[in-house]
């Protein structure tokens, strides 16, 4: 069975994206589906009679600002291979988690706890779920910073986390 020379050049439809890109995009799809599930739940749950809207805590918006700055710093550090900026964006990420806890305290100070109103429960839950995923991203960032490994995908994930948080706030705000 000699190796016939026919057909050795790549076939049509032989697309071969980098494994890392596939993993990153698919995982972003997974996280998107998770927040899609929560969005569906939010819209189905809203029209019920006991809906008492809450105002989004100020710390929530401040946190969003911190994330946006962190993303831009990360993007610049990726382009300029500048590791100082990378650590700055990681610091802002940690600050963001701090603002989340402050927004929770702000809410509970206003008497809104997890079970008290559905809108409040959604805010607590979504910020908690987003916080967990963001914390995962933070670990990945620290891993890439210390190991100097490929940052493309972690940056993509980090920007996606920023967008998700913005999306969540806009969803909860109206």
């Amino acid at each position, binding site marked *: *069975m000699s*190796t*016939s020379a*026919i*057909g*050795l050049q*790549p*076939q*049509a*439809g*032989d*697309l*071969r*994206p*980098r*494994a*890392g890109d*596939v*993993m990153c995009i*698919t*995982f972003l*799809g*997974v*996280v998107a*589906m*998770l927040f*899609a*599930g*929560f969005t*569906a*739940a939010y819209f*189905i*749950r809203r029209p*019920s*009679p*006991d*809906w008492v809207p809450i105002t989004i805590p100020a710390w929530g918006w401040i946190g969003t600002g911190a994330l946006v700055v962190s993303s831009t710093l990360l993007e610049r550090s990726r382009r300029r291979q500048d590791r100082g900026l990378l650590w700055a964006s990681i610091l802002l990420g940690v600050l963001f988690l701090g603002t989340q806890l402050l927004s929770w305290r702000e809410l509970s100070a206003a008497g809104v706890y*997890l*079970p008290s109103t*559905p809108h409040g*429960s959604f805010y607590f*839950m979504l910020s908690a*779920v987003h916080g967990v995923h963001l914390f995962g991203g933070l670990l990945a960032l620290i891993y890439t910073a210390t190991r100097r490994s490929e940052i493309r995908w972690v940056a993509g994930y980090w920007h996606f986390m920023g967008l998700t948080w913005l999306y969540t706030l806009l969803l909860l705000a109206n």
Partner: protein
Amino acid sequence: MAVEDHSAPTSFVKKYIFSQDHKVIGLQYILTALFMAIVGGWLAVMIRTQITWPEKAMVTPENYLSLVTMHGTIMVFFVVSLALVSGLGNFLVPLMLGARDMAYPFLNMLSYWTVVPACFLVLVSFVVEGGAAAAGWTAYPPLSALPEAVPGSGLGQTLWLLAMALFIASFTMGGLNYIATVLNCRAKGMSLMRMPLTVWTYFMSAVLGVLSFPPLTAAAIMLLLDRHGGTSFFLPSGLVFNNEVLAHEGGTPLLFQHLFWFLGHPEVYVLVLPGIGITFDLIASFARRPVFGYKTSVYALWVVGFLSMIVWGHHMYVTGMNPYVGEYFSIATVLITAPFAVLGMNLVASVWRSRIRMEVPMYWALGTVAVIGLGGFGGLFLATSISDIYFHDSFFVVGHFHLMIGVVTVLSTFGALYHWFPKMFGRVMNAGLGKLHFWLTYVPMVALFFLMHLQGMSGLLRRYYDHSIYEFQAPGRELALVITILTYAAFAAQAIFFWNFFYSMFKGVKVGANPWNATTLEWTAPSPAPHGNWPGALPVVDRHPYDYDPAAEEDSDYKPQGVVA
């Protein structure tokens, strides 16, 4: 070429326990699944015994509900998914693609070791105070949310939710790995349309699983908060227990059902599609002819995949969902029979003008084709919303889903194990015992689940601890004894497989790299395949996967898909 090459393991622990080799991880999954299959099977035996002789009251009603719930959960998530999707998938996909290993071996190992604690939690939940979860494998609130409603909804349900969270994490890691491996690590010259159908179905199943599980994670988080955080996502106002109204208000149980079944339906396709893919490959190898309609089958798989994401509502026709929405789901669901019919026809047509070698795997493959037909057509009765009014929550449903995600998956898993056993261990399983095991499993299983359709027709309702109270259920109960005896027979017959599987592992007849003269890439690797699958260079693909010719001379009627340079 795996993205992260890992050197050959040295220590025993690295080689067998915390191994990153897809073949070892595949075997670990299969062995875990076989153990959980014994547990799940034993639960089935107890359920059947209780239903057939209710007056003996072998178990109490709340334990019976735990049996039913855990039988469903274990079989769907911890047996079929582990054995067929994760176990065989991990073993076959890199070998069939001509890759050294999965794209991310460490992530692959992590996914196995995430599912082990989940299995542990499931087993522990039996002995926990209040017993295992008892709100059905679908865990509908408010039954699953309130410990007052059923004892199993106390600690048992919490453990169930944690086990599910771990399983979803593991399945997502595995799914991502499959997608990355299929898209990136194929052999040179193997385009997407030259992949064996088994790999196509694992790819489809990974995509479906990865995209449909997150809404269930959302529902599980909200259910956990409803149970312990005092929120009311799913719990409406006015729930009365012990003359007191609970302090929940505003939630709707339908929300959970929507989120659950958004996963539920794609999940059953995640389980059944690899079974169909394996059946295609087995038939091609043993009928010595190319698969009929490879392209149409791949397109049919895409259509099934897409449709399966938009039809979840057919589980909720009578649950208070708006009937007009139900009618949309009915129209969409019955469309799935079209691509399935294409797959069924291609399976049958792949035997046309062939030259069948009735080896043991071929018994299982042909048996599976018939069951795909029977199970598939049974679905039409439940897809049409009008006939579902009568059949919902009856034994017709039990018979249908058992045939599809029970029998089709189990038959194709056994067929695959008999077929690829030589590649795993370099030995072949005893053919005589294999055929005996086939007859003693196939006949009882298909018969008993078909009889369940008739029980459902006559009005027997499901998840009943004792049917004898009702007069309209009497005709259905007459079949209960026959079904239970067949269940015992099928359960006992598995001993033959276990003996054959573990005996042949060490004492089976030694065989070479390609005992069945098959064409797909894994048969170009030595058996048992070493670390990195091919000692030398990777094979190069220069043709489609099923280059058989039934007109040619008996022993040279095939051209391997790829050749090791």
